[in-house]
């Protein structure tokens, strides 16, 4: 039936072929309709349009598939690339994490093994971390400190001071160093704290790390060093002052200058202290004040050697508390007698002064306010007393030698050498001042017979008593000399001829009545003969004037002795 119709209308065969091509996937197949415009043509046109749609869909599908494949490939490539990047990132992150972990471990080990106290605290005052050393100082484990506030771990005042310092770091965002003291059961401890801000990425202070070091030993060493330096400076000043005092003492010409130097030195080295320098008197049975300084001297002006414990012991005697200590009698007696007038000193020192194996005096020092300084000051006082003793001994020796060089040992009068020096000096002065100088030369009448009769000892006694008599009856500026043997010279500065003659007459008359004893027995009276001359009336030089006086004396002898003859 179908084949019959196909044979009748070839368009049907065309449709069958067309459908077969479509079934094989040939979507480009098309049919050509006839001019009939009947139903078969409509089928043909409809099939053509269907083929067109199939072809378009197929092409679109292919395009979509290709695009999809391309996108899959691109996406796969992207994913592979992303995967590689992710692997790299993971590896880098692992490496970074390992580095961070190692770093953290390193810092943790460092912090835990450090002797310094290390902690981290947040804005709410809670401790985030505290190392073992720091926790141990609080007798806690590091874990026990986490979350605690400073007020829970330290006394309130200390915690507040610490927080004030930490707060400054939170406010300023900069490191801050502070030193503080805390009182622990072992005593006050000095702490040096370095406070460092720990910042967030945005730069805000998240927390503060504190590194605290116990610098007590350092501080103590510094204080000791400072004390040593102060002590050295004080000693250096003392040595300098001692040297200055030594210079002053060495250049002092007499005892008064020495005493003035001593007073000045003690006022400088012992400010606010009082003191007295005692020296043995000539008979060495008493100590007498030779100089004193300061406001109060609670010691006697004169006392016996046995009344001073320093002199009895032969070494320094120190009383740091006069209310309980055993006082020297020269102090006890004075303070007891005058207890209403001034209080006893808080403490005092007595330093015996020795020179050339001989005790020459004692140094007394008292303080009203610094008795605790007595021990510290004792070496200085001792050193000063040694210098003073040496200076005074040297001065005495110097005076002795000087006296021996210009004095006649028998009569104590100046010797001939001193007389000759003095004549030159006095004549020069007289020329400058246009004055005169009186010269009296005299000797003891019949002195040889006296010696022969009574012996030389008696003669010496006469000479000694005459010397004492002359020193007693002439002015300080007059120069009395034993010229030779029983012959004497008197130099009277600024004396006229008449004055000189009167003085000679006075002397002649007085000596006639002089009583001289030898071994308890009175000796015979004796007389003197005088020759008087005046500079510049009888010459322009010492030799000429002396010769004139000698010639006048010779004439007095010739004329019968016991008289005054003017040249």
């Amino acid at each position, binding site marked *: 039936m179908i084949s019959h119709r196909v044979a009748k209308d070839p368009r049907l065969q065309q449709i069958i072929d067309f459908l077969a091509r479509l079934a094989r996937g040939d979507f480009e197949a098309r049919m050509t309709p006839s001019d009939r415009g*009947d139903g078969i043509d409509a089928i043909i046109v409809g099939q053509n*349009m269907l083929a067109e749609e199939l072809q378009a869909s197929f092409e679109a599908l292919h395009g979509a598939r290709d695009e999809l494949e391309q996108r899959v490939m691109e996406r796969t490539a992207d994913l592979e690339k992303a995967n590689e990047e992710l692997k790299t990132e993971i590896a880098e992150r692992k490496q970074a994490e390992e580095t961070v972990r190692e770093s953290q471990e390193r810092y943790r080990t460092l912090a835990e093994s450090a002797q310094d106290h290390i902690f981290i605290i947040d804005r709410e005052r809670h401790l985030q971390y505290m190392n073992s050393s720091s926790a141990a100082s609080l007798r806690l484990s590091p874990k026990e400190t986490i979350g605690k506030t400073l007020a829970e771990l330290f006394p309130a005042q200390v915690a507040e001071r610490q927080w004030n310092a930490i707060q400054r770091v939170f406010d300023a965002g900069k490191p801050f160093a502070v030193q503080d003291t805390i009182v622990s059961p072992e005593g006050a401890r000095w702490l040096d704290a370095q406070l460092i801000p720990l910042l967030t990425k945005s730069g805000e202070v998240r927390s503060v790390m504190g590194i605290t070091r116990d610098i007590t030993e350092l501080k103590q060493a510094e204080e000791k060093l400072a004390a040593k330096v102060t002590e050295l400076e004080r000693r250096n000043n003392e040595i300098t002052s001692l040297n200055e005092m030594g210079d002053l003492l060495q250049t002092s010409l007499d005892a008064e200058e020495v005493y003035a130097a001593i007073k000045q030195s003690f006022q400088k080295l012992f400010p606010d202290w009082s003191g007295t320098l005692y020296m043995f008197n000539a008979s060495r049975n008493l100590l007498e004040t030779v100089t004193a300084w300061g406001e109060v001297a609670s010691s006697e002006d004169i006392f016996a050697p046995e009344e001073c414990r320093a002199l009895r012991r032969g070494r320094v005697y120190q009383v740091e508390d006069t209310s309980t200590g055993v006082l020297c009698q020269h102090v006890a007696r004075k303070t007891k007698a005058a207890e209403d007038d001034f209080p006893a000193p808080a403490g005092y020192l007595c330093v015996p002064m020795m020179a050339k194996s001989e005790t020459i005096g004692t140094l007394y020092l008292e303080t009203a306010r610094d008795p605790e300084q007595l021990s510290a000051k004792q070496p200085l006082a001792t050193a000063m007393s040694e210098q003073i003793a040496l200076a005074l001994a040297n001065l005495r020796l110097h005076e002795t030698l000087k006296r021996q060089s210009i004095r006649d040992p028998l009569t104590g009068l100046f010797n001939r050498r001193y007389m000759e020096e003095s004549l030159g000096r006095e004549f020069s002065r007289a020329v400058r001042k246009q004055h005169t100088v009186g010269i009296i030369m005299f000797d003891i009448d019949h002195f040889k017979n006296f010696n022969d009769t009574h012996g030389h000892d008696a003669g010496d006694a006469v000479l000694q008593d005459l010397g004492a008599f002359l020193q007693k009856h002439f002015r300080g500026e007059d120069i009395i000399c034993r010229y030779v043997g029983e012959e004497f010279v008197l130099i009277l500065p600024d004396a006229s001829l008449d004055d000189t003659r009167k003085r000679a007459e006075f002397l002649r008359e007085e000596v006639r009545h002089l009583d001289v004893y030898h071994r308890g027995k009175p000796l015979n009276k004796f007389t003197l003969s005088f020759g008087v001359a005046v500079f510049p009336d009888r010459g322009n030089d010492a030799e000429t004037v002396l010769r004139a006086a000698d010639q006048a004396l010779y004439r007095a002898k010739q004329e019968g002795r016991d008289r005054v003859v003017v040249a």
Partner: protein
Amino acid sequence: MNTGEFKSATFEIFRKEDGVVVLRWKPKVELTLALAKESFGVFTSITGGKKTPLLVDATTIQYIARDAREFFASEAVSHAASAVALFVGSPLSKTLANFFLSVTKPRLPTRLFDSEAAAIKWLKEFLA
């Protein structure tokens, strides 16, 4: 009286008094994309861009190319016409129109009519 009338070798187009625009294809025309665009350009020039119902006389049309079908189903056409009535007569034209409706699926109200009067009546419902 018709207004805005246009005639070419392949189609004619005009606006009826009642406002419906009529596009009448000449016999044996194979509708290509170029013809589709040309006819649409004339249509919009007649309507002045105002959505207007359109009667398409496809009774003698021979074929509609695929790209031309897609053009008629495009958004541009749906913005220019308010409704389309496809007037068909022969089996071929019915096949073409049915295929257009069922496969290409126009975006605006579109119906087949084998009576022009019925088509006009339906289109008037879409006059603004």
